[in-house]
């Protein structure tokens, strides 16, 4: 019981994921600044932002909204990110959960934060938040199928195993899945799914600062907004960690393995940041077509190749 609480609250759950995620968020902003020839924020900037929102700022509740739901949504978003983080990170640091089929649960848990943002936005009663929420819902519907196809490709490559621990072990004994044609295709599709799940720039229409003033988060201030930020930090860590687990061999926490783990994580986040910095925001219609037609096509080609063992 005690060790479970430790897993959930400290390592590798809530606290660990939040701290690493905050550093990755700084890395993301720093790279963005360097791409634009700026100097960028200091290392502890995400922590300053979080503690300012948590401790200093006033929380304003919408007068004509569902106040309880508005406040509960960010808490459940953090909860969903923590649960998904525990299920992804435990196999990654070589502790078996003994749970056959956790890949399916991870898929469902990763939907919870986005869904909570939608619920919170609709509970605030703000018209711009409603626009953002409808866009987020369309985005969820377009990328979830693609993400499921990516996981299906991984399951086929792993010989019908839906246990993340076994998938990682299989890669560490043989070659990582990204070392084949279907693996590369699945990696490309997975990176675009991550971009949409994190609501980063080509797919950031739900929050579109310049267009609908923050969209789904427009009414959030103070502590609830700190929770939103926290869940965003955690997602920025656990989603790249999932890609590393299912495609890039997992990590090994001994000797040089630690360096490799850091390098893999930084490389995936760097890729996401560079995509975000070199693309304009697309319209929601274009995003849906992009996922439904092109990414699904790519994922299905990858699955067919995986069935033939390529």
């Amino acid at each position, binding site marked *: 019981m005690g060790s479970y609480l430790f897993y959930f609250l400290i390592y590798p759950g809530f606290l660990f994921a939040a701290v690493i995620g905050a550093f990755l968020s700084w890395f993301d*902003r720093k790279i963005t*600044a360097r791409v*634009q*020839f*700026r*100097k*960028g*924020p*200091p290392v*502890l*900037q995400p*922590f*300053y*932002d979080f*503690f*300012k929102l948590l*401790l*200093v*700022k*006033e*929380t*304003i509740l919408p007068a004509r909204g569902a106040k309880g739901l508005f406040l509960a949504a960010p808490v459940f978003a953090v909860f969903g990110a923590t649960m998904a983080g525990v299920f992804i990170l435990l196999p990654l640091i070589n502790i078996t959960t003994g749970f056959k089929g956790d890949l399916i649960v991870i898929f469902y848990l990763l939907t919870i934060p986005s869904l909570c943002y939608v619920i919170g936005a609709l509970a605030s009663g703000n018209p711009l938040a409603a626009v953002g929420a409808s866009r987020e819902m369309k985005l969820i519907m377009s990328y979830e199928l693609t993400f499921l196809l990516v996981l299906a490709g991984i399951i086929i490559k792993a010989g019908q195993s839906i246990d993340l621990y076994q998938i990682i072990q299989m890669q560490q004994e043989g070659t990582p899945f990204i070392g084949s044609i279907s693996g590369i295709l699945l990696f490309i599709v997975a990176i675009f799914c991550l971009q949409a799940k994190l609501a980063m720039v080509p797919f950031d229409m739900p929050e579109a*600062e*310049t267009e*609908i*003033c*923050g969209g789904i*988060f*427009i*009414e*959030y*201030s*103070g502590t609830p*907004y700190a929770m939103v930020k926290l869940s965003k930090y955690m997602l920025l860590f656990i989603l790249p960690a999932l890609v590393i687990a299912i495609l890039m061999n997992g990590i090994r926490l001994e000797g040089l393995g630690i360096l490799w783990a850091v390098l893999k994580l930084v490389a995936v986040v760097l890729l996401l940041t560079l995509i975000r910095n070199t693309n304009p925001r697309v319209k929601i219609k274009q995003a849906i077509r992009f996922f439904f037609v092109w990414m699904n096509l790519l994922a299905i080609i990858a699955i067919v190749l995986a069935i033939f063992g390529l």
Partner: protein
Amino acid sequence: MSFKSYCFKKSLWLFHFGGASCNNCDIEILDCLTPRYDVERFGMILVGSIRHADVLLVNGSINKKDKPRLLEIYEQAPKPVLVVAIGACGCTGGIFAEGNTFAGPVDKIIPVDAYIPGCPPKPEAILAGVVKLMGKN
């Protein structure tokens, strides 16, 4: 200095309210966010919603149409919020001070924490004002 005020000082998020401005101050404010001056070094970013803002930048002369809007924006901001009046029009009214539609400089409507005079103030002057604002509390 306490931990709370240190965090607040290190992460000031800006919201820009332009009154009946000639757009010159707007452009100078945007200059501060460009690579040459880069206020993100100090943890400042421009936010889209007043609910996320810590600093309200007000420029331009405030006329009768702007006054209720400025008041509403100020009341919607989560406290503590700092107000900075930018440019001659924001600080005193400038050449519009005796106009028919002029409704008073910013500090007659809402409390102002820092004044940055100039027509328009140079980005260096805005940065100097920002640094003074960070040293104030």
